């Protein structure tokens, strides 16, 4: 009969080693910064010297700061502008390529290529495209009888100027994901629908869209998170202006923490953004799940 000691399974150190390859960097570079940020949000700290405990003072200051409140409002507006834009245009582009319409192989490259260019370059290029007086956007809109639009210099338009740029930049990823989803839909389903007399629109409405739902759900979630964290385009194109009309939470965190060395306040705003992203993501996932059931 085997003893209790000999029945105990041996520790598989090799398995721990393999898991540690992921876990250790994850804890160090993902979890530890979140914990440190949470800690800092209760401190007053300017990098040099020890942090000083201030309780919830940073959160109070953040909630009393007009600039920061506007930035939260703006990222929700960005979300409402950019996410539907990326989703609809990404879907249209994917359908175009998937249906092998004319020049679809060239279109595939064109649709995806903006995504591989850095946001800084995109921002700089679009500053010129959207220039009020000399930009090509207003030039061509002029042919339609539309007056020059101050895309980046007016409080009414700057958010949309940055939003359009972001849609153009982000559409590439949505396009690839949706295209992959389209190519996974079995051809038999379309054949069956066609035999049943479904029109092209009905095939799209009752076959394509339901089958794409998991992919679209993922695109919405990813895009929502990316949009709530929008920074580079804002930094390059408008610096959050004019009058904070295009600012974002990340840009305000950068201003508060990196420019003004108020790391405690920056950390408090970061934690608030963390909670907002969690909530919005949770709600959107729940909404999509409810619709699908």
């Amino acid at each position, binding site marked *: 009969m085997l003893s209790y000691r000999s029945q105990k399974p041996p520790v598989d150190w090799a398995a721990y080693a393999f898991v540690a390859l992921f876990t250790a960097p994850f804890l160090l570079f993902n979890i530890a910064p979140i914990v440190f940020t949470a800690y800092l949000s209760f401190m007053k700290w300017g990098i040099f010297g020890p942090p000083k405990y201030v309780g919830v003072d940073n959160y109070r200051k953040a909630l009393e700061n007009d600039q920061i409140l506007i930035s939260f409002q703006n990222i929700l507006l960005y979300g409402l502008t950019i996410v539907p834009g990326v989703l609809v245009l990404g879907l249209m582009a994917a359908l175009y390529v998937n249906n092998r319409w004319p020049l679809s192989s060239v279109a595939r490259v064109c649709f995806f290529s903006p995504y591989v260019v850095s946001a800084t370059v995109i921002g700089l290029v679009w500053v010129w495209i959207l220039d*009020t007086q000399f930009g090509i956007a207003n030039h061509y809109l002029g042919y339609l009888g539309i007056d020059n639009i101050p895309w980046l210099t007016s409080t009414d338009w700057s958010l949309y100027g940055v939003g359009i740029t972001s849609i153009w930049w982000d559409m590439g990823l949505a396009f690839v994901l949706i295209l992959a989803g389209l190519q996974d839909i079995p051809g038999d389903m379309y054949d069956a629908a066609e035999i049943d007399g479904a029109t092209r629109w009905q095939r799209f409405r009752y076959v394509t869209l339901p089958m794409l739902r998991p992919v679209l759900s993922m695109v919405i979630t990813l895009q929502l998170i990316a949009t709530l964290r929008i920074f580079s385009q804002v930094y390059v194109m408008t610096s959050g202006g004019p009058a904070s009309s295009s600012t974002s939470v990340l840009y305000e965190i950068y201003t508060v923490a990196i420019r003004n060395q108020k790391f405690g306040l920056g950390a408090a705003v970061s934690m608030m953004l963390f909670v907002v992203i969690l909530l919005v993501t949770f709600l959107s996932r729940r909404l999509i799940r409810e619709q699908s059931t």
Partner: protein
Amino acid sequence: MKKSEVTRRKLIKTAGTLALTSALPMPFIRRASAATELVHWSPLAASDGEVWAQMIQNFNEAHKDKGVSIRMEVVNWDDYTTKVLASAAAGEAPDFGWNTDPRPSFVRDGLLVPLNELAANSGLDLSDFSEFSINASKFPNYGGDELFQVPLDLMSIQPEVNTAHVAEAGLDINDWPDDGDGLLEWAKAMTKRDGDTVVRSGIMMTGSGVQPTVTWGIVAEQMGFQRISNDFTSVCVNPEAGKAAMQWVLDLFDTHRVSTRDVTDRYKAFGTGQGSIFWTGPWTINGYLAQELPFATKLFPKVGEKRVTYFERGALELYLQSDPSRYQATMDAVTWLSDNSFLWCTEGRGASPRQSILGRSDYKTAGAPWDVRGAFVDGLEFATAIADFPIINGADFNIYSGGNFLAKTLELVWAGQTSIDDAMTKLQDGWGESLEEG
């Protein structure tokens, strides 16, 4: 079969040696090597940056066989202070940097190295510097009579004027106006409109950011406004003058219609002829000359009761090191750069604080032509509107900023989202709190 020679003892010894070597701080390695490499951070990235890079290269060539060299790294201006703080906290601060703003908190926290003794050992002749520039490099509240920066250049903001637009409007550049009314007449003559829309600004402005903020700062001081009282006990002295200056800036857009808010990059816009008068600093000269822009630089007119313009001082400062033996070598390098700053103060940026350079017969003929460079130097006479103040929260008062408390407050006025009265009240409250921190 030969037995392996790698014994446990040997393995531990080798691993220990490797670990010890890798754990050694960099300065030790730097010291141990024959040459000392000084690390220098600079935020200069406009056309003046090329001249500064040349200065560093000149130093390295002059010290090729002397065992010392400078490695320059360009750091984004917005992040400069934070990066210096972070690197110092990690014990890896650069040896020295070029900076414009006085940072009393750096002195209070021991981040800046006191220079009196080091400067004396290096043979830096402090009597050659203007008294004003030396006093501005001391922080009596935190550092007594110690010098913490070596002044390198002085500059003012003055109007650059597109001479092609001047000729086109039938004006004579030699009749440049001396007062606010004349300035507006010139601006109106050179402004181009398409219906009600300004398509070429007589006075180059942006709808937010640095340009309207610094314009307000200059005009407000001309009208008698003071951000902080002379005794540093109160803020917003003569608020009515500050409000009048806000109105003056607003009128450029809405009443006189000589400026448009529809400009995103003021430097490029002036360079491409979208503006006729653009007040800026000497860092733009080389770039505009290279692109053959026809322009001259004039003195800032007297818009208010007295003639005032923006003043800025560039200086070199030494940062806290874990190895203090590097300070003297760094100070020697800073002394060399100061002694040889003729190139920097003729082709690079602004005027020199040193009499020996200003007194040279070729001072006005070297570098960029005097008609584009001279006003920046001559205008120092009335350049008294300093960027920010030597207090802990001085950055909140900085008139050359696009993102600080002042700029964000004024931005709402320019966009018509708050009244001038409310903005002034907000400045009084916010600056009052900032001043309380010392």
